[in-house]
């Protein structure tokens, strides 16, 4: 029974692929609904745009049982430390989808009250555009995340708010310091 006799009639695979496949298939989102995008996230979770078909059946309420945080809505300065606290309390491995332009870049509210982009607070993996992104856009973002999980490294921590698998082209990085800005804008 030499190797060349194998007719690929049974599955072989590294353990890593198996783990990545399992993680990708059941990513449980934590309900972090803030504003209008939360309503679209709920609509995506409901009957018509069923998120359950991606294994995201349940929106876990406590970060201890959640793998993915969908930041759905605009993040105000008062909410920033709370968001960071919930992110810290999530179990490894964890991912973040920044849903909507308000979460990704502050959107149309370029003023004192909104954190201009949630990647100043938590490292973000996938940005979903739209105001609010329709459930299809959210699903596209989720599928891109699944692709990342399937091809990304397993254990490597993310650096400086950039998703793990992005190779080192000269990606424009915000020169805004990765600290939570409290108090009056400088």
């Amino acid at each position, binding site marked *: 029974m030499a190797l060349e006799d194998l007719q690929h009639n049974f599955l072989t695979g590294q353990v890593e692929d198996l783990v990545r496949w399992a993680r990708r298939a059941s990513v449980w989102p934590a*309900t*972090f*609904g*803030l*504003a*209008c995008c*939360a*309503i*679209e996230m*709920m*609509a995506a979770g*409901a*009957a*018509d745009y069923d998120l359950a078909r991606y294994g995201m059946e349940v*929106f876990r*309420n406590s970060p201890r049982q959640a793998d993915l945080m969908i930041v759905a*809505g*605009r993040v*105000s300065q*008062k*909410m920033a*430390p*709370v968001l*960071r*606290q*919930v992110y*810290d309390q999530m179990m490894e491995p964890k991912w973040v989808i920044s849903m909507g332009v308000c979460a990704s870049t502050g959107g*149309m*509210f370029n*003023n*004192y*009250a*909104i954190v201009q982009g949630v990647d100043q607070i*938590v*490292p973000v993996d996938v940005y979903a555009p739209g*105001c*609010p992104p*329709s459930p299809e856009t959210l699903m596209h973002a989720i599928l891109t995340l699944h692709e990342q999980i399937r091809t990304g490294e397993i254990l490597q*921590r*993310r*650096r*400086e*708010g950039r998703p793990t698998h992005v190779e080192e082209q000269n990606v424009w990085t915000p020169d805004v310091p*990765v600290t*939570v800005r409290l108090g009056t804008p400088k």
Partner: protein
Amino acid sequence: MSDPTIRVAERLDVLAAETSEGEQGLQQRSRTSKNELGREVGAVLRQSGLTLDPNDVDFERRDDEIMIINMGPAHPATHGVLRLMLELDGEFVLRSKTVIGYLHTGMEKTGEVLNYVQGGTNVTRMDYLSPIGNELGYSMAVEKLLSIEVPPRAVWIRMLMAELNRMSSHLVWMATNGLDLGASSMMIYGFRERELILAFFEKTAGLRLNLNYVRPGGVAADLPDGWEDDVLVICDTVEERSYEYDELLTGQPIFRGRMVGVAPIAAEEALALGVTGPLLRSTGVPWDLRRAMPYLAYDQVEFDVIVGTYGDNFDRYAIRLNEIRESARIVRQCLERMPSGDYRSQDPKVTPPPRARIDESMEALIHHFKLFTEGFHVPAGEVYSAIESQRGELGCYLVSDGGSKPYRLHVRAPSFVNLQAVPLLMRGGLLSDAITVVSTVDPVLGEVDR
């Protein structure tokens, strides 16, 4: 090297200081003034004289007997980022205080920076469950200042869209209220019906949410052709399904146990707190702006104002359920009596000229250019116009200094005022009743924090 994405705080109180809001939150009883304590216990309104009598509020609770916990911003049952600080004695809620501001977007400041043509996009994101309501309040205020007339077809289209929006918002309320009480199938049904309405919104205004469809001077675009049968399908489906919801929820003993007779509010307390909408009507006060101070064409349409008797959770549920059917009834009348004609006022100052005419006439090109760069000027003055949104009276106080940008834009959000009734409703109830109170007050934090 230490990984920057992991926040290493030496001691726990450094973390606690970051998320604590100090004075805004609930303090220990020993450090709260008596008047504020009365307010948080919700006692200040119990007496008819509306003054605080000390023996009504049991002040002598020692600090180590009671527990202060946060039903905080990231909570599934607070309908958004409302932080509710509760003081508990076992399961009983003694005192509660709402800490808000976690979704403060500075919209009133942004309103002063955008001109009148762009103002709708900013206002429509306040109450994200009723975009048409926000825009209608804002546009009617601007039209009053400009003192221009909106053509009849625009009036009826606005009414049609406002009532469809009321149905979709009440359906979301039925869904999330069911989810809060554990009936998660209600969540699925509520959102399934709402998709029909959102599909019609997408067909008419191009977007599912934040439509920017109602603009000063009329509506953005005419109704798509074939809209009659879409609307008819929506009305029939939602109305027939609302009887299914009735069967599903009303008879359930658990649902009744948590809703009937829970958290009643008296009429005088609601009036003193400035509460409006289904919360006020549940106490028996027949106040609905669509009937009392009619705007648009509500006086030419017959519909019923639904008024409760006991002012408890069950009445608020029954009011919202029946308001879905009333809205469907209004929508049907709009269907039959929709006048023809243009959908925007033809006043060149306010409405941009149709695209085709720009190529022909120089004057139309100048109008178009002026409108979309600087926007139209509104004569100096101030006005307060109010409409009946799903949660109560939504008012828009607009001050203009003659320029093309509002000088001050203040929106009176019904949820912001209704939230003040929460300490009163929660007093003495169980923690599980607290969940139903927040759900039946139906706050939308986008308009609370603005």
